[in-house]
């Protein structure tokens, strides 16, 4: 049976981001949410195994009946299972079809594999040794640290209180469930490891740094990818390495909000800091975004629930509208939920723009599953705002239309701004993904996908973006830092990474470790390393070090690599 696949964040998947070696991570990312009607058509009741296939591959998922999903659609948590079947085609945008992808689904007797099994099928070798413990050092006794900045999502909540004892964080207050999971994670990698004949061996930092420098210096088309999970200082050194070796440096934007940036480069970005929304907004729109799963405190800190200076009763006086293809957790708590047929966002933006321009009469009976009457009613709510705020998610950037969807969103905000006050903010995912755009831009002129192979900085998403370069097998050496393509890149990319020298720099063993030739562990920014990060609204914050490290941080490892390359040149 053919269905339309959308993949995205779930709360349970997010909680396991720093426990990817666990069985729970495999279980949570191999689910398939499907409407009971479609289950019935498949001849399945409840939770059973299905094989999902695309031209790029097939694997087994476990079904979960869900009336939140439109009949004809399925929803998959993002992670290694979804990406195992994801074609690497990006339509020259850098971002593959994580959403609005047609798949074939059938019942099967087979069981889902584990995440490590999938990575091994992509050419990797699992790293699932016992936990090596936590390399951090705390003062004697118990310490409480306040106003800690959370290094998890683009909200960069800065009110976390941590309790530290016995060389580890033992309690995390004020944080969301994702924040808790990250701060309490202790299964760090202790020493660098190198893959020798398909098995992992421990090595020292000196050897690891020399190997990395040699690989990068001699490579013809090196790629430095990731960066969203580290601080600005490390990112800047990364840019200097790319410049020095004539390599390409790209960050996670290229597969998430890169299309938003392409739209902004076409039409601009009417935005604001989140405090403007909190203190003023009476209409809040989440479009293709599910903050309850991906940015759990966004609504309570910035948009919906907090007291607003200019609002008498913030909760009552605000109207929250969610546009999505499925009834997400956020949609369930919204005042208005507009369910759009998968791939129909562009048309709905256009319809709203037409209504705001006073052209109601040209709207057909329904637009992407939304009735004319509903569109007119919603447009009236939008126009009635004193201050309206759009938050746009990767539901727009990773589905059909990609950057054109976001362009249309900006143009709707532009249209509304002629009547009242409106702003738009992309819901940036990683805690410092917007920081990568900031540092890359002030260093190179471009926010991501920067290729130095011609000596000058050259930017062309679709050509110089990581997924495109890897799937075309251009890359002959890769450094992965502050990101996990092993879990989040299409299979074809990982298969290529497994054939070239790939060095992972990360505090934790991650899925990418499997397809790497070496993994260099580092101190974790926000725990035992510090530096600058940029919130989703461009507010820069200093991410603190709350314990002493016993490992070098990203900046130090990169600086040593830079020096070693320069010395050998």
């Amino acid at each position, binding site marked *: 049976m053919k269905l339309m696949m959308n993949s995205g964040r779930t709360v349970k998947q997010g909680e396991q981001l720093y426990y990817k070696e666990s069985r729970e991570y495999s279980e949570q990312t191999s689910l398939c949410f499907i409407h009971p009607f479609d289950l019935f058509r498949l001849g399945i009741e409840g939770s059973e195994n299905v094989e999902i296939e695309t031209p790029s591959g097939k694997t087994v998922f476990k079904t979960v009946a869900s009336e939140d999903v439109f009949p004809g659609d399925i929803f998959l948590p993002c992670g290694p299972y979804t990406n195992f079947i994801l074609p690497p085609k990006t339509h020259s945008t850098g971002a593959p079809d994580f959403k609005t992808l047609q798949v074939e689904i059938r019942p099967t007797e087979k069981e889902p594999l584990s995440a490590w099994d999938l990575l091994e099928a992509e050419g990797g070798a699992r790293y699932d040794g016992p936990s090596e413990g936590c390399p951090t050092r705390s003062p004697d006794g118990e310490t409480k640290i*306040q*106003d800690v*900045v959370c290094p998890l999502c683009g909200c960069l909540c*800065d*009110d976390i209180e941590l309790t530290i004892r016995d060389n580890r964080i033992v309690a995390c207050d004020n944080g969301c469930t994702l924040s808790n999971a990250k701060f309490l994670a202790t299964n760090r990698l202790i020493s660098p490891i190198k893959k020798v004949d398909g098995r992992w061996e421990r090595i020292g930092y000196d050897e690891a740094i020399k190997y990395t420098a040699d690989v990068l210096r001699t490579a013809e088309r090196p790629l430095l990818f990731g960066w969203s999970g580290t601080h*600005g200082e490390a990112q*800047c050194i990364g840019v*200097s390495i790319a*410049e*020095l070796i004539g390599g390409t440096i790209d960050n996670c934007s290229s597969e998430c909000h890169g299309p938003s*940036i392409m739209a*902004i*480069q076409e*039409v*601009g*970005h*009417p*935005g*604001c*800091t*989140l*405090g*403007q929304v*909190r*203190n*003023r907004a009476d209409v809040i729109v989440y479009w293709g975004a599910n903050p309850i799963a991906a940015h759990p405190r966004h609504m309570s*800190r*910035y948009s919906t629930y907090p007291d607003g*200076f*200019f609002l008498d009763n913030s909760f009552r006086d605000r109207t929250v509208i969610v546009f999505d293809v499925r009834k997400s957790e956020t949609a369930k708590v919204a005042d208005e939920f507009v369910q759009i047929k998968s791939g129909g966002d562009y048309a709905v933006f256009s319809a709203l723009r037409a209504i705001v321009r006073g052209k109601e009469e040209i709207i057909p009976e329904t637009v992407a599953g939304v009735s004319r009457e509903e569109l007119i009613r919603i447009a009236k709510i939008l126009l009635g705002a*004193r*201050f309206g705020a759009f938050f746009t998610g990767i539901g727009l950037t990773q589905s059909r239309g990609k950057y054109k969807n976001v362009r249309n969103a900006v143009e709707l905000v*532009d249209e509304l*701004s002629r009547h*009242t*006050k*409106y*702003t738009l903010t992309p819901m940036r995912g990683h805690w410092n993904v917007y920081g990568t*755009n*900031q*540092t890359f*831009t*002030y*260093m*190179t*002129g*471009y926010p991501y996908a920067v290729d*130095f192979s*011609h*000596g*000058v*900085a050259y*930017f062309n998403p679709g050509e110089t973006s990581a997924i495109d370069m890897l799937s075309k097998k251009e890359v002959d050496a890769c450094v992965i830092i502050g990101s996990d393509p092993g879990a989040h890149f299409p299979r074809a990319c990982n298969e290529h990474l497994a054939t070239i020298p790939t060095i992972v720099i990360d505090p934790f063993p991650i899925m990418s470790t499997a397809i790497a030739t070496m993994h260099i562990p580092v101190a974790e920014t926000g725990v035992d390393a510090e530096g*600058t990060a*940029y919130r989703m609204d*461009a*507010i*820069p*914050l*200093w991410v603190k070090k709350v314990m002493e490290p016993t490992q070098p941080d990203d900046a130090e490892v990169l600086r040593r690599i830079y020096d070693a390359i320069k010395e050998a040149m």
Partner: protein
Amino acid sequence: MAELLIKNACVIDPINRINGEMMDIAVRDGMIVESVGPAAAVIDAGGALTLPGGIDSHTHICGTKVNFGRYMSPEDMRAGRTTRRGEMHATSGYSVPTCYGNSYRYSAMGYTTVLEGAMAPIGARHTHEEFAHTPLQDAMANVLFDGNWGIMQAIRDGDQDRVAAIVAWTLAAAKGFAIKLTNPGGTEAWGWGKNITCINDRVPYFEVTPTEIIRSMIRANESLNLPHSVHLHCNNLGTPGNYACTLGTFDLVPDLNDKRQTLYATHVQFHSYGGSTWKDFCSKSEEIARSLNAKPQIVIDMGQVMFGKTTTMTADGPMEFNLYRLHHNKWSNHDVELETGSGVVPVTYRRSNLVNSVMWAIGLELALLARNPWQCILTTDNPNGAPFVKYPEIIGLLMSQKYRSKIFATVHPQTEHRTPLQAIDRELDWYEIAVMTRAAQAKALGIIDLGKGHLGPGAIADIAIYPIQIKDIDPSKEYEQVIRAFQQTNYTIKGGNVVSRNGYCTGTSHNTTYWVKPEVPAALDLDHDPEFEKYFQLYTVRKSNYIVQERALHLNRCIETEASL
């Protein structure tokens, strides 16, 4: 002990009243001294024009909105690319170059000090990070206070001490240098999609007027004994007839400081417009210059427009939206909670466009009609009027009526009916140009005592040697040689190190960030003020995380002042 001797320099150093004297300059450990020993390294200037390092007292080169200008315009990045070369990093960008691009290009033109014109305190950390990557200039930043809720509330409550206290705390927290007001009150109104039209409109909810904000901030500035004065971007930028608003603003300014001006009015070209619509748009430079000439307490910078593509960027959010509605290119906006706003819109100034032609003329007229060059500083409000690489052409225009006429012949034919430019025959001399590009800036910013802007013993050895023999040249006729000379120094020396040689930038310069820390009486110290703690809960960041720690800065120099409160 590093010693350097620059021989045979033709020096113009207005602060020390030196005008074209042939002399030697001795440098030891980065400072200018009376003499050095025989082992000193020698640079033979060969009679070339030698000036103190250039200072830009109003430019946009680092921070959130500047970076947004880059981020949203890959076309501008492509328009100015250089490869990595020796110690020089690759650069991108024409009107909004990358940090290295700005730094190398300024350095090649002899500039050693820059002031970022607009920094929102909540985003200060970003500006400082870019300063750290601007290796060949010392830097400082204006801090935006135009829509500061705490200050507007204090003004409404008539609590002038609290105004000063908030300014003092915020400057030190943001590691900023001076008070900036951009369209005072207007950026807060823009939080509701509204604007302020002139100095007596009331700000929504806060019920104060720009007049009250400007007056109160001038008092606070002087009571904190800050090096620079209030730095003002007037209300109503860029609209026909706005000159009346500018004149009204100038009339508000008392003369309170005997070392420098009491108000620095920036990019005044954009505020000197007559007419009631774009149809009868005309120059009011004569009225503005007349007011300026009668008020020694005011210093302005030009905000010269030059033809071609550029990017506009300002904290003036509502102005940018209006500009976007004229140009229909692309529009970015970034309102900042409790503080200010901002916008970025790329534009092209065209000779064929009458309004653009009149704007071009007005900037030049202001510089030519201001009697005292110390009161009119050469800027383009980089990159709003034009990228700073156009400064040498502006120098050429100011020094040569022939050159002005040549360009005038290419602009919109109606321009002569709307502007007095063609009737002005003044040609500025080398000394006046030296005043308008470094000495006046040092005086206006209050940094002469820190050793900036001059070449006397005790000064920081920031020196620019230009490949031109001023005795052999008639700038009125040979303006092309003047322009070429100012485009690229033979030597740019910063802190005693050669940082640029014939346009090739080398090494680093111990680039330093200057910031101020006013000491206020304990009762006005907001660090432990419960009311201020409560006020801070309106922000989405904690007070402790808002403060830029000193250790997060690059090399820096703190200027401590003692408040008279």
